[in-house]
C-alpha cells in the first residue's frame, strides 16, 4: 500500500489502541480515587437562595437536576448500605427552593427524612417543617396533609396533631373520603394496627415512585409479621397453659395440634420463639434487619 492509502488505516490503529489505553488508565485512576475519597458525595453550594440567583431564569431546570441527584443519592446510599444520609436534607432544601412546586420532592423527601436509619435520615421534625413549606407553596395539594398526618402518627406519635392534619386535608374537595374518617379514628383511638396498615396501603397505592413503594411494602410486611407474632404469642400462652411451659419453636405448636403447619413471615421465613417464649421474626429473615423500627411496646 502506498503512503497516502495507509493513512486512514494508521488512524484507525491509533484510535483503537489509543482508546484501549485510555480505558485502562481510567480504570486505574478510578481505583486510586476511590481509595482517596472516603466520602464521594459532596455538596459544595448548599445555599438554595444563592443557587436560585445564579440560575438566572433556569431555576426549574436546575431543580430537576438537583431532584435527579437527590434520587440518585438516596438510591446509591441504599445499595451501598451506608447509613449516613447527611446530604438528603440539603439536597431537598435546594431542590424545593429552586422549584417550590416539585411535589414528588415533598412526598419522597418527607418520608425518607422522617424514617429512622437505616432507611432514612431520622429527622422527623425536619420532615414536618419541610412538609409545611410544601403546603405553603402548594396549598391545593391535599396529599401533603396526608403525609403530614402520617409523620405525626408514625414518627412523632402525636395523635392530636395527626388528626388535625388529616382533618385539614379532608377539607379539600379533591381529597379522598377516608381522610375525614381517619381524622376521627386517630383522634379517638390513637395508634392502631388497622390504621397503620391502612395508611401504608394508601401510600403504596397512591405513589408511582419505586423507592416509596418498596418502603411501604416493607412496612406492611413488618406489620404483618407483628400481627402474626401476636397471634403466635396468644397460641404460646395457650400452649403454656396446657403443657406448663412456653414452646421452644413453632414445631411444638404444630405437634400440639394448635396450628396446622409452620407459619412463615411474608418473606417465607419461619417464625421463632425467643428465650422468654415470645414469638419473633426469624433472624435469618431480611425483615429482621428492618425490625428495629418496630421495637416499640404495643
Amino acid at each position, binding site marked *: 500500500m502506498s503512503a497516502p492509502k495507509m493513512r486512514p488505516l494508521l488512524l484507525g490503529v491509533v484510535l483503537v489502541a489509543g482508546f484501549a489505553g485510555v480505558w485502562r488508565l481510567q480504570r486505574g485512576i478510578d481505583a486510586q480515587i476511590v481509595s482517596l475519597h472516603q466520602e464521594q458525595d459532596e455538596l459544595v453550594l448548599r445555599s438554595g437562595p444563592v443557587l436560585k*440567583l445564579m440560575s*438566572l*431564569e*433556569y*431555576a*426549574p*431546570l436546575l*431543580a*430537576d437536576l438537583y*431532584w*435527579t441527584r437527590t*434520587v*440518585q443519592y438516596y438510591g446509591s446510599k441504599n445499595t451501598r448500605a451506608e447509613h449516613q444520609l447527611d446530604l438528603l436534607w440539603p439536597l431537598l432544601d435546594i431542590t424545593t427552593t429552586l*422549584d417550590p*412546586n*416539585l411535589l*414528588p420532592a415533598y412526598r*419522597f423527601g418527607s418520608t425518607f427524612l422522617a424514617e429512622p436509619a437505616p432507611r432514612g435520615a431520622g429527622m422527623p421534625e425536619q420532615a414536618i417543617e419541610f412538609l409545611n413549606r410544601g403546603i405553603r407553596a402548594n396549598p391545593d395539594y391535599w396529599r401533603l396533609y396526608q403525609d403530614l398526618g402520617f409523620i405525626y402518627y408514625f414518627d412523632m406519635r402525636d395523635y392530636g396533631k395527626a388528626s388535625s392534619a388529616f382533618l385539614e386535608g379532608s377539607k379539600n374537595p379533591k381529597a379522598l373520603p377516608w381522610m375525614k374518617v381517619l381524622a376521627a379514628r386517630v383522634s379517638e383511638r390513637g395508634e392502631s394496627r388497622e390504621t397503620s396498615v391502612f395508611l401504608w396501603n394508601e401510600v403504596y397505592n397512591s405513589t*408511582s*415512585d*419505586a423507592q416509596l413503594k418498596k418502603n411501604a411494602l416493607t412496612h406492611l410486611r413488618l406489620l404483618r409479621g407483628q400481627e402474626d407474632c401476636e397471634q403466635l404469642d396468644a397460641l404460646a400462652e395457650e400452649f403454656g397453659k396446657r403443657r406448663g411451659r412456653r414452646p421452644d419453636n413453632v414445631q411444638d405448636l404444630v405437634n400440639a395440634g394448635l396450628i396446622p403447619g409452620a407459619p412463615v413471615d411474608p418473606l417465607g421465613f419461619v417464625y421463632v420463639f425467643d428465650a422468654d417464649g415470645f414469638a419473633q421474626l426469624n433472624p435469618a429473615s431480611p425483615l429482621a434487619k428492618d425490625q428495629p423500627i418496630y421495637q416499640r411496646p404495643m
Partner: protein
Amino acid sequence: MSRAAVVAWNTFREAVRDRVLYNLVFFALLMFAAAILVGQISIQIEQIVIVTLGLSAISVIGLLMAVFIGVGLVSKEMDKRTLYALLAKPVRRWEFLLGKFGGLLLTLVVNTAAMAAGLFAALWYVKHPLERGDAVVLVAVYFILLKLALVVALALLFSCYTTPLLAILFTAGLYVAGLFVNEMRDLQSATMAPGMKAFLRWLSYLLPNFSNFDVMAAAAHGRAIPAMLAAQNTAYAALYCAIVLAAAATVFSRRNLK
C-alpha cells in the same frame, strides 16, 4: 418600508445559507436523548423535565443566536464593506437597520418554531395523549421569542457603534442585569442611602425587565398564563424594541463608515 423587507429577506437567506439552522440538529438530539433517558431513570417528573429542558434549550440556543448573530449584523457588513454598495442604493440607513432586525427575527422565529415542534414531539412521547393544558408551553415559547426580539434589538444597537466583542459583553450584561431588575427595585438594605435606593428604583424601570418573560415554572407545572400578561408583555417588548431601534437608527445615521 418594503425596502426594509428586501433587506430582511436577504438577511434571513444569508443566515440559512450560513448553516445557522443546523443547531436544530443538536436540539433534536438533545430532546430525543432526554425523552428516552427520563423514562429510564424514573424520577416521577418526566413531563416537567421535558418541558424545563426543552424551554431552557430553546432559550439558551435562541439567546446565543440573538447575541452572536445580532452583534454581527451591522459590524460584519461594515468590516467586510458589503455595506458600501448597499448604501449607495436608494435605501435609507434606518430601513437597512430595520431590515436587519427583521431578518434575524424571522430566522429566530423559524428556528424557535422548529424547536417547539421538537419539544412537543418529545412531550408526546413521554405522556402519550397531549392535553389542552399543554398549550401553556406554547405561551412560554412565545414569551421566549419576545425576549429574543429585545435581545436582538440591543445587540443591533451595540453593533452600530462598538466592536463585536464589546457589543457581546454589553448585550449579555444587559440580559443578566435585566433578570435581576425586580430584586433591584425591592432592595432591602438598612445601610443604603435613600438617594441610592431611589436611583436603583429608577434604574430598575429603565433597564429591560427580562424576568417579565420568565414563565418556565408555570409551563412546567401546567399552570395557566393569563392572557392579559401575554398582551402586556407583547406591548412591552414592542415598545422597548422601538425605543432601542430608534436609538440605533440615530447612532447609525451619523456614523462615518471606514
